[in-house]
Each structure stands twice: as C-alpha cells, then as structure tokens.
C-alpha cells in the first residue's frame, strides 16, 4: 500500500501543499484536504436538553421539536387505523401482542411486530409501503418553519419560501432542510444520530472524500483557482485521540464521484462556479448508500482557516428527491428504522415531493429535484494522483447487499413513476423478513401474526437471510448445515 504512510517531503513542499507557510503571491500552489464530517446543512434552533411535554427540544426551527412518529400507543393506533382493511383485533394485538410476557426478548419482539405492521400501510393489503409510499395516505411531517437556513441561492432568485443565510444572504434554496429538518435522527446540535453515524462510518473506512485546491496566486486570495472533489480509496488516518491525523496522503479517483471546478478565493473563502452536475460522494453510513450524489446546478463554498490546516464548507445543488428517499429509507429495513427512531418514511416521502423545487421537467410538469446543501469540515492532507487507474473497491459481502439495494431502489422509483405497485426484491429485509420468523417462535399468538401480517414472499431458494444464505418462504436456510441469521 502506498498510503498510510507519512510522506517524507522537504519543508518547502509541505509549505506548498498545506500552506503552513504560504508562498509569495504569483506562485503555483496546491492544498489538499480530507473531509472528516459530512452532514446535511440543517440549522439547529432548539435548546439542548429542553423538553416541553412530549416535545423534545422545541426551537425556532421546529416549534414542536423533533419528529415523534410511533412514540405512543395512541400514535400507533392512529397510524394503523388509517388502513381501513385492518380489523380492530389486528390493531389491538399489534399494539399488545397476547402472550408477550412469556417471551424472553419481549421488547425486541414487540418492536419487530410493530415494524412489520407499519411496513404495510397502503390502500389495500399486500402492497409493501416503503417500496410504494405513494400508495399510502400521508401521515404528515413536521417541517422547519424558521426563515434562517444555510445553503446557496441556486436559482438566482429570491422566493417567498427561500431562507436567509446566517450571514444575511437572501434567496437561500434548501428545501430539504424544510422537508426533513425536524426529522428526529437528522436534527441536533452537532449530535444528530445520523450525522454521527456518517462521521463514524467515514472515520472507520466506509468512504473517504477529499478536496484539492490549487492556483497560481495566493492560497487565500486567488481569482483563478481550481477545486477538485472526489472519492479516495484510502481510509482516513486517525491520530491517537481519534481525531484526523494531519498531512497523510490520499489518492483521489477521477471517476464517477469526481468533479473539477473553477473557483475564486477571497480572504480564504473559496467560491466555485455553479456547474450542471457536481459529482461527489453521497452521505452514507452503510455501503449500500455509497455512490455519486450528483448535485444538479451544484457549487461549493469553503472557508479555509488562516493557517491552512483545516476548513469548513458547503456543497450544494439539487438532488433527485426519489434518490434521496430511497437512500434514506431502504438501506436495511425501513419499518424498524421508523419504529426505532420515531421517523415515518412515508411522511418523509410526501414532504420531499411537496417541497421539490428544482430539476423541472417540462414534459411531465414535475420537479424531480429538491434543493439542498451538505456541510463539511476538513483537515489538511496530501491529495495525490493514483499511480494507476482504479475503481472504488467493493467487498464480496457488500456486493450482494449493494445489488439488493439497487434492485429495491429501482423498483421504488419505478413504482413512483408508473403507479404500479412494486415488490420487494430478494436480499432486502423489509417487513422484518426473515428476522421475525425467527424471533416470534416462542410467542403463543405467533400464528395470528404470521398469518395476518403481510410480508414479502419468495419461492424456496430465492429469498435470502441477513448473511446472504438462501432461505425457504418460512425463513429457514435451504442449507441445513448453516445457522440462519445475521453474519
């Protein structure tokens, strides 16, 4: 491995690359950075730790606090009662499964039953909701009501629903913030659950994003600079305290997640041009989510620290809202995610399409994109060319999971466009299948739930468990020598 080693470079080169000692004006210069946090630019407006009744950290962004879907039995009854095809007994038993106290892992089992139940909320039985959110009634989503938001004026206009930036810039387009900014795991004061997951996943090697800035004038003031952004195959190197070790080398791959942009730098603020497509790594915390964010009308703004050793910034543009929905909801098991994190991805789906404001398609009259901005922090690094062309490395386990994810994502988008209900492709775990088939075995009322609650069905040998083993329709491994379940 050529990486993971500190380059032995003379002081002059260090100065050139990191700008610790900035060169004189009119000299070629280059600075590299590795991204160490990557999150939606959602501006938090609450007071940490403050609650009011059932509202968690209400604030100027979200007057009623973060989302609280499926928090109480009363909320569950409302959510399940929207499906007129459910009997009262079904609702009652889902909320309080008979005989649950005789099960050792009763909390986990109730969680699984609820997760399976909310995975089917369409207008009739048998339609998997998270693959077909358009076929369910809108459960409603709290939205950001604040006028202050971060991002860019992407369309060059100042609209009635646009935000004002914290610095006072008008016309900020960040409709994703309005749509999802109150969603529980995305909202926080630097401690939102998913922000931390993305950060930790990056630091433990899921993906690495790097930026390289270069010019011929001064790193802090250059009227004709270049910004490159892309994926690196090299894992982030941490220091002894878990932070980002400075000045390590990272290769930048000029592949589908790479973009080169012109920029101007004034007093350390790097502002790129706006490009038709800005390719960069997506926000991700599992491998299935990895890929090209593909911002339409994208641009980047960076603020470089005076010593050149660190920086912050925004990456913005319009993202296809169907992609955003699929990447956020279908990476594992949307029902479990919703019950466990007090989200509702059906509500998030409708919030996305309701707030879509870009990538207008004349033929259909629809907005395919939603304006957004992603926030980054970054540390100085050497960003170097790869010795030879290479693709993003994929592990065997990741490959089949990725294929299953791409299949369910494709089905979801197809369903949205055609309004033909789509199935859950094998290899996905929607409706807690086949996990519930294992965990429910000791429940006295299991037959009721296994018979009544919908789930995906496959011919024997087509479905897969969490480890990729082929299973029969009841969730048993075809190969009797292996134990079914997570790897």
């Amino acid at each position: 491995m050529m990486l993971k080693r500190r380059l032995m470079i003379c002081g002059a080169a260090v100065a050139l690359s990191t700008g610790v000692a900035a060169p004189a004006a009119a000299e070629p210069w280059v600075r590299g950075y590795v991204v160490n946090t990557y999150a939606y630019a959602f501006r938090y407006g609450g007071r940490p730790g403050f609650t009011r009744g059932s509202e968690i950290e209400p604030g100027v962004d979200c007057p009623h606090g973060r989302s609280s879907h499926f928090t109480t039995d009363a909320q569950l009854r409302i959510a399940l009662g929207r499906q007129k095809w459910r009997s009262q007994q079904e609702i009652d038993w889902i909320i309080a499964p008979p005989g649950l106290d005789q099960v050792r892992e009763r909390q986990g089992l109730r969680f699984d039953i609820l997760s399976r139940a909310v995975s089917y909320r369409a207008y009739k039985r048998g339609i998997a909701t998270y693959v077909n959110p358009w076929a369910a009634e809108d459960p409603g989503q709290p939205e950001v009501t604040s006028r202050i938001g971060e991002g860019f004026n992407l369309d060059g206009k100042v609209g009635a629903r646009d935000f004002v930036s914290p610095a006072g810039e008008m016309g900020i387009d960040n409709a994703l913030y309005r749509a999802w900014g109150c969603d529980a795991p995305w909202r926080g004061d630097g401690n939102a659950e998913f922000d931390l997951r993305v950060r930790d996943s990056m630091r433990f090697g899921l993906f690495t994003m790097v930026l390289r800035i270069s010019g011929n004038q001064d790193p802090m003031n250059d009227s004709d600079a270049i910004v490159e952004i892309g994926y690196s195959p090299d894992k982030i190197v941490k220091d002894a305290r878990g932070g980002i070790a400075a000045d390590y080398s990272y290769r930048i791959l000029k592949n589908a997640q790479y973009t080169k942009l012109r920029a101007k730098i004034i007093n350390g603020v790097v502002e790129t041009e706006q490009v038709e497509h800005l390719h960069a790594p997506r926000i991700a915390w599992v491998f299935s989510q990895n890929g090209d964010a593909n911002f339409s009308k994208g641009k980047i703004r960076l603020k470089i620290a005076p010593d050149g050793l660190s920086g912050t910034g925004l990456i913005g543009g319009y993202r296809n809202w169907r992609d955003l929905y699929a990447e956020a909801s279908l990476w594992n098991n949307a029902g479990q995610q919703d019950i466990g994190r007090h989200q509702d991805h059906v509500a998030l789906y409708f919030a996305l399409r309701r707030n879509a404001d870009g990538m207008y398609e004349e033929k259909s009259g629809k907005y395919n994109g939603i304006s957004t901005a992603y926030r980054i922090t970054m540390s100085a690094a050497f960003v170097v060319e790869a010795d030879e062309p290479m693709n993003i490395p994929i592990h065997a386990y990741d490959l089949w999971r990725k294929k299953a994810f791409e299949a369910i994502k494709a089905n979801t988008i197809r369903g949205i466009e055609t309004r033909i209900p789509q199935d859950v492709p094998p290899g996905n775990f929607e409706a807690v299948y086949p996990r519930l088939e294992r965990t429910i075995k000791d429940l006295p009322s299991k037959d009721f739930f296994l018979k009544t609650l919908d789930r995906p069905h496959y011919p024997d040998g087509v479905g897969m468990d969490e480890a990729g083993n082929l299973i029969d329709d009841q969730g048993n491994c075809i190969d009797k020598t292996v134990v079914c379940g997570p790897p």
Partner: protein
Amino acid sequence: MNRNLGIGLTLAALGAAASVSFAVDAQPGAAPTSAPANPAQAGDVLPMVPLAKPGVVTVQKRDGDRFHLVVAGHKFNTRAEIEKYLAYRAAELTLEQKASWFTFIEARSKGDTAPEPRSDPTGRRYSFRMDYFRPAWRYKAGGAPAWVSWSPFSGAAFIADPKGITDFEVSADIVLHKGAMDGADPLAFEAQAVADLLINQVSPPE
C-alpha cells in the same frame, strides 16, 4: 375495481440526467450514477381510470380558479367509492389546468355541527388529508321523485339504506393553485399525490 390499460410505451429514463457536462474539462471515467434509469418496460400495464359515460362528470368554472365538480350516477356502491372518484377527478382537473394543488371549499350552512378542520396541533404538514375531502350529496331513494340533500357537516347520519338510492349527485367546489402548496392548510390537496393514491382505486359510477 381497477382496470388497466396496456400501453406499449417506454417512458423516458428517469432519475439521473443522461448527459453530464463538466466545468473545466472532461472528467475521466465520470458517469452519472445517481438514480438508476428505470423506465416502465414495453408492455407494462399502466393503471388508467376508464372514461366516464356522458353526464357522469360535470365541471363548471366559477370565479377565477374556482371550479364546481359534480359526479352523478344511478348505481350506488359505497359512499367512499364515489367520493374517492370525485377526489380523483378534482386532482386530474388540477393537473389538466397546469396547477399543482387545490383547496377544497367546504359547503357549510348555518346550524352545521361538524367541527371545522384545523391545522395539525403538533405542527405536521400534509400533502393531503382525505378525511377532509367532504363533498355534498343529493339523492333520490325508494322511488321518491324529489331530491334529498345531505351535508357531511350537518351532523345528520348518511341515508340509512343507501341500497335504495336510484339517483345521486356528489359535488365539490375547489380552488386551483400553482407553486408550493400550503401543507399546513387542512383543506389543501397536492393533486399528483392524490391522483397517485387513488388511480388504482377508482372507477366512474354508472
């Protein structure tokens, strides 16, 4: 009952744009990898609501962007089915008029007892709330020649024996809107979302 119409079209590729332009120069190996292109397949059977017979649907334009819709028929199935069909036609009318959402105008009278809908007390925003699409009815039943009116806001129960209905008219007034919808308005309906939900559920009454 849903009917489907076979359509041999291949829809345009969806999601990511097929062409990629670059800012400075060509990007080696770059390719759009966003949403997988996932068009409907040739031969896909796309859902489609059959055309209504003449006289079943009447649309009248009132002031500005206000429209009055009436669905009439003789064969009563269920109240919900007929009201859903009216809601679907309201959504389709909105889209045909190049608008994106509509507000439902409630036909309330003095003495009505049904509570007025309010914004969600927990601050949730909605693309639609079907419970608040409450059209007015009039019908003839049991061979009687006179029309009987029924308002969903009156507090009176719907006809006890709807099987005896021989003629009915269900009506709604809506106002069309363009641009971003007001998700806090309980009477606002995003037309495409309503059409998506109902297209597989409705058919015109007879």
